[in-house]
């Protein structure tokens, strides 16, 4: 009903925006196209409406929705995205605000912006076929597009107005992925206005948010989720490889359908300072085999590299991650070590480790790594953590032979720590079933046996009244899967993810007292019987 001609689209979006949209199509299609036919229509957009509100404009609140046909599939790709009408937006801003915003530079900044993608929903089949677990949200019908894409991965590029707003874009994507548990999904304006500082000062800057502000927004009543600023510094397990632990943690979150916002240096990720020859080899954007280097990634003195945020939306078994970069494309690949190399540069008073924020349901009070303490003085060791401590710290104390346990918990099987970890919504049978199956993932296991064991564990879990005390649990599978009664099975620890640690000062005694966070321990196989059950 609302289709529009491509000529109108070109006029309203502008040549640079159209070029970006075309590049994105090629990227999503796997670079197989020579040309991609498009179809466009006027459509509502939660993002463009929010940006209009932010800029004091009444139009253009509608976006131009773009569909992509794939000739080889004889049909439409299960994706759609809303394009910003950048030329129109620039005109409207200039007309409304005149020189107040620094025109004509401001106008040029909008009109020449490559950040054309407002909100979108993208089917990740291509990446799933390549072995990735990819997070999606059931949003197609809410966009009125269930015919095109029922479930998809949300993506948007941030609007760059003087400063980037990548944090808000990442928050939007992550909150969309947790839409089942959020109180509300806010547009860019609302997210920016939801920080305590904005609420207190009754003003805010059109810039990014700090990591702490991102956490603050997630925890606001309006959003109704939670986040923890976690870091790769591991004071509790010095002999462990921090990077490997981060990989385990990220995969545990992602396989639990928890998106993770990672703070990176945009300059390193985009290779802003690299020559053309270096670019394809030495930065994440370049190594993603983009057919051409986007013009805007070339060195631009006016846009210095700096703190940037991306959101992890997928992972594979070999520590390769998929992330949505609001400054470029969705589904970019990077290894754990590549992302580590792109961590925020060391600055006085700042953490010198990789930092990330898992976006979790509000009731979850126990993250996996916990929050490292920030030291104002870089010479002071920052390797302490402020509450809440992560599950890994507690489990390291309770499960590895280096530490004394309280004696109340069973001895964990040797090796393989920290094992397989999943977050479970005990109110959701699908979530419980998936996590139970994950606890028996073993390539050597017959699928029928695996299904039997998973079902057995699920029954044991459901029959244990103690688990009714909270909705959110962490499952942790340790040691081998035991197939029959004669085997020596490993263990499945069920942790209360809602366990309230209080604000006890940092001490090993306090940590050891947190054995109460363990609901129960089960045999990982055989009868899946509980070998330990805590007190309610």
């Amino acid at each position, binding site marked *: 009903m609302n289709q529009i001609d491509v000529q109108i689209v070109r006029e309203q979006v502008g040549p640079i925006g159209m070029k970006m949209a075309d590049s994105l199509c090629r990227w999503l299609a796997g670079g197989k196209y020579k040309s991609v036919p498009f179809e466009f229509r006027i459509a509502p957009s939660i993002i463009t409406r929010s940006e209009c509100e932010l800029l004091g404009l009444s139009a253009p609140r509608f976006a131009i929705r773009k569909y992509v046909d794939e000739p080889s599939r004889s049909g439409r790709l299960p994706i759609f995205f809303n394009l910003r009408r950048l030329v129109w937006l620039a005109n409207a801003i200039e007309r409304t605000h005149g020189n107040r915003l620094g025109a004509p530079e401001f106008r040029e900044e909008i009109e020449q912006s490559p950040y054309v993608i407002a909100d979108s929903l993208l089917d990740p089949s291509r990446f799933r076929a390549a072995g990735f677990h990819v997070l999606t949200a059931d949003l197609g019908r809410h966009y009125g597009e269930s015919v095109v894409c029922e479930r998809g991965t949300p993506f948007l590029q941030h609007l760059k107005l003087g400063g980037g707003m990548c944090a808000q874009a990442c928050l939007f994507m992550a909150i969309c992925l947790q839409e089942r548990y959020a109180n509300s999904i*806010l547009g860019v304006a609302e997210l920016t206005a939801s920080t305590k500082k904005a609420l207190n000062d009754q003003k805010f800057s059109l810039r990014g948010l700090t990591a702490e502000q991102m956490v603050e927004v997630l925890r606001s009543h309006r959003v109704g989720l939670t986040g923890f600023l976690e870091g790769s510094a591991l004071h509790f397990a010095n002999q462990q490889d921090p990077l490997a632990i981060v990989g385990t943690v990220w995969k545990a979150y992602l396989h639990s359908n928890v998106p993770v916002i990672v703070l990176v240096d945009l300059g390193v990720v985009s290779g802003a300072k690299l020559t053309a020859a270096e670019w394809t080899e030495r930065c994440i954007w370049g190594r993603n085999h983009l057919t051409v280097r986007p013009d805007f990634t070339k060195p631009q003195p006016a846009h210095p590299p700096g703190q940037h945020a991306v959101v992890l939306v997928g992972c594979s078994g070999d520590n390769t991650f998929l992330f949505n970069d609001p400054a470029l494309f969705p589904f970019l690949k990077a290894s754990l070590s590549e992302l580590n190399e792109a961590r925020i540069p060391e600055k006085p008073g700042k953490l010198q480790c990789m930092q990330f924020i898992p976006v979790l349901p509000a009731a979850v009070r126990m993250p996996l790594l916990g929050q490292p303490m920030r030291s104002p003085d870089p010479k002071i060791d920052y390797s302490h953590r402020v509450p809440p401590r992560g599950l890994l710290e507690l489990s390291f104390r309770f499960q590895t032979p280096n530490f004394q346990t309280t004696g109340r918990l069973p001895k964990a099987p040797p090796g393989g720590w920290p094992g397989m970890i999943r977050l479970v919504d005990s109110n959701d049978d699908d979530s419980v079933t998936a996590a139970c199956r994950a606890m028996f993932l073993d390539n050597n296991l017959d699928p029928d046996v695996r299904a039997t064991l998973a079902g057995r564990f699920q029954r044991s879990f459901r029959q244990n009244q103690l688990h009714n005390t909270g909705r959110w649990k962490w499952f942790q599978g340790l040691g081998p899967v035991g197939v029959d009664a004669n085997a020596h099975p490993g263990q499945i620890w069920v942790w209360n993810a809602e366990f309230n640690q209080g604000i006890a000062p940092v001490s090993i005694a306090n940590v050891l007292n947190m054995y109460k966070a363990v609901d129960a321990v089960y045999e990982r196989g055989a009868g899946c019987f509980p070998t330990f059950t805590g007190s309610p």
Partner: protein
Amino acid sequence: MSRLQLSVLTSACAVGILDPVASPLLSVYGEIDLEIASHRLGPTGVEFYLAMEPDLPHLANQPAITSGSLTGVLPPNSNRPVNAVEILGAMLPQQLERSADLINRVIRSRDSDRTIVAVATFFPEISRSNEMGYPARQQAVNALANSLRLAAILNRDFKHRIAALEAVTGSRIRILEKTEDADPLSESDKGSQHTIALDRPEVVRERLIGSLADAWSQLDGDPLKEFAPPVALELEPGPCFLLQDEHSLTELAGLLDGTPTLNGLVGFNLDIAHFRIANVSLDAVCGVHSIRDRILHAHVSGHHRCAHFGDGVIEADDEGEIRRWLKFLTELWSAADRERRTSKGLAQFSGYVSLELEATRCAADVIESARRISGWIP
């Protein structure tokens, strides 16, 4: 008690409906009539969206705005950006009459009995601070006054039954400006930045009331005033909007209670989707007379539980909840409610709930939603 009736907002068609060759929506009304006949509902009413950008040049009797007049760069005959408050605010009486005639002809082009029952607008500038340096607020006041005149002409001369003129209340954003970097939130990108200042809600509320009073005062002494519908203010979910939640709804209702000059002239539009997204409970609306008695009209659409991605198709899962709201709307027609409104000098409820599927994907979505909702109307 009279039966609640169904109407459909023309904003389903975002490419405009006033261009005779580009009005795919118009046939939908007849199709919906056939669909809902089995539910003994009357002909589908039209809620005309006045601010759809491609329609604005037609309303202003300017079929082609010359290149450069508004955009500076776009060629003529394109789907160019135009500003609703500028165009509607500047319309002269003769243009209003011609526009009313055009709207009437288009709406009745397929069915001579088709009736407009409400008009929708979008003038968020109505509560904007003058600090923005652009006369948008005054233009919005003028646009609102002209919209009221236009609706009055449609009622008086063409026998439409427009019972409400829906309007948004704008946002708390006072000013957007470029400032030097005094307090950087980010650790990079030092230099200049763009800063947004918010007004306190009570300040914006007062400004809104002033604008509404100004708009209505423009009709003082005008014979059209008696045919003009009351303004139905719409809640929009989001922390920057003035009318955004139960608290702000209660506050604004209280302010209207204290402004008797606007009695009968201003009330609320109950957008069921917006109310649900903003967690405004039915109980809160039902039980507070200053809100309940000011509900003039209603919108309904499918939506996400907690986000406004757009207007979705109404789904079967929503039946229980939407039925409760529809039952409440029906009660607004009860003798007790009508008498109470009359005694307080307040306007009556339109008797219609409008299906709003703004810029929808296809006509079939509108028809499907209409079929579903018609079965839920008590």
